């Protein structure tokens, strides 16, 4: 196969970054991640995540309302910083506006709470499947 910058990175264990302070939402996500054997790194707020770096991570799972900003604002900040990672936003099943805003900000999907488990398993399963044999590199280049 032709060497390619995207495919020559070091393999890293898949880790999902969880952002948000809602305890129930965290528990739902944890359950899905445990089921798939995906590691996690948790962040209380958008600022906490922005202050960190995440080489080798699998995806972001962001609660739509964070203590310091909305998921949409966080995605916009990440984009400005040139940090790309598939983002799944958790929104209440009635909050269409938050869902639309998050999609406009480039989210991969918006998953309804509390029916999160199945959708998360589907997305993470797909992201993991695509990692096999083709580990991602950190960030852009």
């Amino acid at each position, binding site marked *: 196969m032709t060497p390619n910058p995207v495919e020559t990175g070091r393999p890293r264990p898949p880790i999902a970054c969880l952002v948000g302070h809602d305890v129930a939402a965290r528990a739902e996500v944890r359950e899905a991640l445990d089921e798939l054997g995906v590691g996690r790194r948790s962040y209380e707020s958008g600022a906490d995540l922005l202050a960190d770096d995440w080489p080798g991570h699998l995806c972001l799972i962001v609660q739509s309302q964070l203590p310091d900003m909305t998921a949409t604002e966080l995605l916009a900040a990440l984009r400005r910083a040139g940090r790309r990672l598939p983002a799944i936003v958790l929104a209440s099943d009635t909050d269409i506006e938050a869902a639309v805003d998050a*999609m406009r900000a480039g989210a991969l999907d918006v998953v*309804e709470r509390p029916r999160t488990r199945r959708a998360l398993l589907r997305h993470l399963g797909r992201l993991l499947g695509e990692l096999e044999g083709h580990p991602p590199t950190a960030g852009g280049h």
Partner: protein
Amino acid sequence: MKERPATVFVVDDDEAVCTSLRLLLRSVGLPVVTCNSADEFLKQFDADSPGCIVLDIRMPGMSGIELQQVLNEQNSITPIVFITGHGDVPMAVEAMQAGAVDFIQKPFRDQDLIDRINRALEKDRKTRAELGERDQILERIASLTPREREVMELVTVGKANKVIAGDLDVSQRTVEIHRARVMEKMGARSLAHLVRMVIEAGREG
């Protein structure tokens, strides 16, 4: 090319909604055409004319989502603002994933809808103006890596990421990453926009 006025197309099977939106949009000076079905709309719609589409999700016959698919297949870049009486999150997400610029629930405040329509019209104006800048498009294409260019060519002939992954012998995720980078470097707002830029670039200078 002659500058044509931007038109707001309203597609809703509910005549009362069509009438009230016609009055509302005219009152703010926006040219408006209303249609009671997707078929009626398709008969008079010209993808090369500037404007936007205010589209009801649920309609008898062809639904709003189905009409969106038809327009995507025609590489229409005209922005769509969905309106719906009984929307849910998955429906909104699906519409946005398919390229809608907005999604609003009835009942909405008049001003809210007007703001969103103006935003959609502004986006349409920008996209069309950029398509007229052939040099800029060529410059952007020149900034792509050979692999990105390869992915762009396959994407714009309508191949799915999965198929491209097979063609190039890379993972689907890799294709997605290249594809995202192509969209970003090209400044493409949608797949249809990218297709149009490629067509524009291929034209005899």
